[in-house]
């Protein structure tokens, strides 16, 4: 997992103007901040999208009209539990992360 060490670059290698490429925080996986993990109970899911909408970290992906659910990308999920709290059908359970 990339770390602060990525910021170590030689003077001559720095990008002009100390810039960064768009969306490059994807290199930084925030999943290990998590102590609780969302566990989906898909049988109760109505594909309402609230988990997708209200996730502050944008980790839910639309699995499409066939699968009809949203799947969290655990590489980035920080385990805040907003999805579980906002789910109108209580089909997301926050469970202790297994190490």
């Amino acid at each position, binding site marked *: 997992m990339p770390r602060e060490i990525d910021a170590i670059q030689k003077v001559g290698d720095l990008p002009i103007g100390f810039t960064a490429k768009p969306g*490059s*925080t*994807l*290199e930084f996986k*925030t999943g290990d901040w998590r102590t609780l993990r969302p566990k989906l109970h898909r049988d109760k899911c109505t594909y309402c999208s609230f988990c997708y909408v*209200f996730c502050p970290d*944008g980790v839910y992906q639309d699995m499409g009209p066939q699968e009809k659910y949203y799947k969290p*990308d655990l590489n980035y999920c920080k385990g*805040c539990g907003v999805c579980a*709290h906002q789910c109108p059908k209580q089909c997301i359970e926050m469970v202790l992360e297994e190490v």
Partner: protein
Amino acid sequence: MKALETPYEKVTAKNFPKGPDVLASGHRACQGCGEVLALRLLMKALGNDFVAVSATGCMEVCTAPFPQSAWRVPWIHVAFENAAAVASGVESALKVLRRKKRGPDRRIPVVAFAGDGGTADIGIQALSGALERGHEDFIYVCLDNEAYMNTGIQRSSETPFGANTTTSPAGTQSQGQNTWKKNMALIAAAHGVPYVATASPAYHLDLMNKIRRAAAISGPAYLHVYAPCPTGWRMKPELSVESAKLVVTTRIFPVYEVLDGKYILNRKVDAPTPIEDYLKIQGRFKHLKAEDLVYIKERVNEEYERIVKLAEAFPATA
């Protein structure tokens, strides 16, 4: 000023933009951050065709630590108090370069994002100047988490009455913040700009459509967005959207628009939720006494009624 509004598509549950977020994951916002949620939804609504300007603050620090950036649109951060001035410069540049045929031949919104301190305190002068000058493609978004969270929860002029912060601590001689929240939306509206709105991320479609409307309008727009901060408010992270809902249903944060000086109260709250429901989930209010609550209730209703009356007195026709 008469708002020149070009047609725009409203965000609905059906056409909700489900593509990759314009604000990428991997940013370092706290767990349950309501500010980054609001930012994410606003950017989703705008898509990829805008330029973003950030004031120094939580959102700037957590989205752009060298060598990474969460922004998928062109983005610039210069300093704390000057997002409105930087955005003014970008907007003017895009305008003149378009005229001189050296830039894209279309309107590109320039959106400044700042926190409550960067807006209502240190940045109010630059904001006032930008609003007054009438930049056509200028949108200013205040993401209001009601204190200086990036520096460690110090009070701002947007901190609500009674809140315990590190510089408005509750003590034997103090109930915490001893002033009422500064009403930035009405201050912005007093500039006579074509569009001002308040919004909460709990009402995501309302929030997203407001920035779409702001982008469709020619002239400066100001959005005051409620941004729950679990860390600074001593609140469970999973409750941030809940608090963003309660703040509206308790009448504490009326959700409205000011279009060409005409008021639209988007969510009339006839049967408000008890204010205690909002306060009790946040540690910053836990010290409040019964008499403080009496005052808060009175003042909340007074402020809410002000907006109701404005909407009655100056109703929007369309």
